[in-house]
């Protein structure tokens, strides 16, 4: 298995290119290697496969697992809760700033199989952790299911930054095969002044349903969601976030960029919910869509529910289009599709990419 990772150019050996980043590799739902464990243990950070966490830290797992995403949450969360075999576990104790980026690399390798990993990150009072997950899968004609659950818990003054680079196999150009990416991701800002930030770059999967959300329970807590989703051929991406404002002075920011090409469909679906007690809650949402050609679609479905008169909720959305003729013209002058898009929509994905801890390598 390790040699597969080497072939893919994903270094697990600590001395290699990804120095300074601790990596856990999950292969068909089984964690195969976790690096930098000792160094992290020196400062008290636990970073290990979920299976080890269950054996070595049962009190933490029992306390937090399922506390953000209950097994009854939705069909795929139930499925995951029933069958998950492994995943990553992170625990950052009080006052500790995790000294390095943590990273999990997921890969679906076997045919006709699903991946059901479970990730749990707990940041105690005043701690900080930044975590990156990457995903790939080889090409297969059959569809495969990825139904993961990610739970984040941030206590008083803690901050969790969670980044995803998702490049699961999207199927071929006729829409055959590919991964169904049905993932439940949710973070709870339980403590005062806590912060959870989701950043995602979604390029793969045949179908994505994914709404990394924040429950802003603690007063003054902050939720952020930055997303770039690109779809082509027959891909469908339905993604967005839920920001549930419960505590006072809670703030959330949503920046979503969608780029659709081919016959793909790209949807932003989001909910901003301000509960009665969330005095002075603030939300700012911006959704920008770019259409390449005339057979793809971009959809924006924002829900806003406010039960508090002192709340401020803003929503901004733009849609622009590059025709196939314009794209070909750019290509003919030597510009790649990416160059053409960035030339035409220069502001596009910049602020999301700068939020990522590492720039994704192709």
């Amino acid at each position: 298995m390790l040699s597969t990772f080497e072939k893919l150019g994903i270094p697990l050996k600590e001395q290699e290119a990804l120095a300074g980043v601790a990596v856990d590799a999950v292969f068909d739902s089984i964690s195969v290697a976790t690096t930098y464990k000792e160094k992290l243990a020196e400062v008290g950070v636990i970073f290990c496969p979920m299976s080890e966490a269950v054996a070595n830290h049962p009190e933490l797992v029992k306390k937090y697992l399922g506390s953000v995403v209950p097994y009854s949450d939705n069909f795929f969360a139930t499925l995951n809760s029933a069958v998950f075999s492994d995943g990553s576990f992170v625990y950052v104790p009080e006052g500790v700033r995790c000294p390095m980026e943590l990273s999990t690399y997921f890969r679906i390798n076997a045919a006709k199989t699903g991946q059901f990993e479970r990730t749990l990150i707990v940041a105690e009072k005043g701690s900080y952790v930044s975590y990156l997950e990457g995903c790939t899968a080889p090409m297969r004609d059959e569809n495969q299911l990825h139904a993961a659950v990610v739970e984040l818990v941030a206590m008083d003054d803690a901050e969790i930054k969670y980044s995803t680079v998702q490049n699961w196999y999207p199927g071929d150009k006729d829409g055959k095969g590919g991964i169904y990416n049905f993932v439940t991701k949710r973070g709870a800002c339980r403590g005062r002044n806590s912060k959870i930030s989701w950043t995602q770059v979604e390029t793969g999967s045949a179908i994505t349903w994914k709404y990394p959300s924040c429950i802003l329970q603690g007063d003054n807590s902050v939720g952020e969601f930055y997303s770039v989703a690109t779809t082509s051929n027959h891909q469908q991406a339905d993604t967005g976030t839920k920001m549930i404002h419960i505590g006072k002075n809670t703030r959330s920011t949503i920046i979503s960029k969608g780029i659709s090409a081919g016959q793909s469909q790209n949807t932003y679906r989001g909910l901003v919910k301000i509960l009665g007690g969330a005095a002075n809650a603030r939300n700012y949402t911006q959704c920008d869509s770019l259409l390449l050609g005339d057979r793809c679609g971009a959809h924006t479905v924002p829900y806003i529910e406010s039960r508090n008169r002192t709340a401020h909720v803003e929503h901004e959305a733009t849609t622009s289009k590059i025709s196939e003729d314009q794209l070909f013209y750019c290509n003919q002058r030597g510009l790649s599709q990416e160059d053409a898009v960035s030339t035409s929509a220069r502001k596009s994905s910049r602020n999301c990419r700068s939020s990522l801890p590492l720039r994704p390598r192709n």
Partner: protein
Amino acid sequence: MPNLLEIQNLHVTVEDKEILRGLTLTVPAGEAHAVMGPNGSGKSTLAHVLAGRPGYEVTKGDIRFRGKNLLEMAPEVRAREGVFLGLQYPVEIPGVSNMYFLKAALNALRTHRGEQELDAVEFLKIAREKATLLEIDENLLQRGVNVGFSGGEKKRNEIFQMALLDPTLAVLDETDSGLDIDALKVVANGINALRSPERAILMITHYQRLLEYIVPDKVHVLSDGQIVETGGKELALELEKTGYATFEKKRAPDVAASAPAQSA
């Protein structure tokens, strides 16, 4: 002279209709060739296939550019390798200035060749030089790509881009269409100035008019998806007199079986 472009038995289908049916054509470096033919003979299809436009499906045959398999390259790679297509109908890109677009394009080419990217000042210097050649007003450089350009300005802008990007193979699709005689002269002068021993130019045209100003080394007649006749520049004049009808009879009886032999 080595052949810069070699097309062998090319069959191309557009929306399930076969347009090119065994086209064979070679263009050596340093030469300017004209491809002439009636409407619907496949002239523009040939131009677009060379540039790799999506929707043109090659079902059979081979295209070599400087010995490399052109059909395996993405459109932008072909452009970076030195294939330029001057479009019959240049596309407008609102919101992107001509200068910004061309600087990005030139730098993409330079990066591909392992050269340093040009900064704005260096680029402007080169751009001004080439703009003078084609009598292009500097205002046009600041406007959106082709936005609000007259037909003649668009065509001049195409040749201006060609001058700037310095391609090895320039395919010019109906560059003369929609030009008045003064504009035609300016464009023709621009193209003539770009003739060089390293470069090949393939002019696709309906009328002989352009060839009075840009004298071709060879003229090919395209009819019903095949080259049916190849000759010197006098062939264009003959066509002007007699029309295409005489050549249409020369088509090989079974087009799929073999392409007509070429002397070029």
